[in-house]
């Protein structure tokens, strides 16, 4: 099982675009179809924006997963921000503390195949995976 890891730092607003472009490129190389590429890019955009909005800075890490015949893209969004107070509230559609649409995290969960959220006073870590069948 071969694994490749890369990452994009999120510090300024433009990094949101940089992260989703990097993720889209990777997903294309891994053989994801165009709809999955859009799902992955959109999910990354939501995760990167959360980092930028709530924690100011953090990092998105990409990991290629090979579990043949499946290949996958694992995306980890990590920050050292204030953490999420009410974990069950942020997973509800329409919940937002920033005046947004509140589609972020529950939306990401629907776009991806696997989703895990850990948050405490030390920061927040969202781990999510999309699988492609080749």
């Amino acid at each position: 099982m071969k694994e490749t890891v890369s990452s994009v730092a999120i510090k300024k607003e433009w990094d949101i675009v940089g992260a989703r472009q990097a993720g889209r490129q990777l997903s294309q190389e891994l053989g994801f179809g165009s709809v999955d590429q859009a799902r992955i890019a959109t999910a990354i955009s939501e995760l990167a924006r959360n980092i930028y909005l709530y924690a100011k800075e953090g990092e998105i890490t990409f990991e290629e997963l090979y579990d043949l015949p499946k290949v996958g893209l694992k995306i980890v969004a990590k920050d050292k921000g204030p953490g999420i107070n009410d974990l069950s509230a942020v997973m509800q559609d329409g919940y937002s503390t920033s005046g947004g649409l509140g589609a972020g995290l529950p939306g990401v969960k629907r776009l991806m195949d696997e989703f895990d959220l850990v948050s405490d006073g030390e920061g927040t870590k969202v781990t999510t995976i999309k699988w492609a069948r080749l």
Partner: protein
Amino acid sequence: MRVPILKLHNYLLVSIQIELDDQTAMQFQEDLLSKIHETGATGVVIDLTSVEVVDSFIAKVFGDVVSMADLMGAKVVFTGIQPAVSMTLIELGIYLKEVPTALDLEQGIIKLRQELEEK
């Protein structure tokens, strides 16, 4: 980076062909409203054929621009939303029910004409 806004009779035509970051999207919102004010345009078509990613922020900006233009008296129609973008938005939970859409630029102009004549 700015999104070009073209005037055609009493319509404004926009084709978004760049990767939209938050700031560009906000700038576009402001530019479009100024252009409506400046030209007295009654209809706007925004074509998204080349747009590959619409996340919740961009979707909110698009929804807002429809309401804002409406307050000023102009109708906005979005056209050319790609299948992948449409699927992704619905899965995200964003329905954009208040946003008028049409398949392509041609249908968009027809829709605008119909809506404006009804008034």
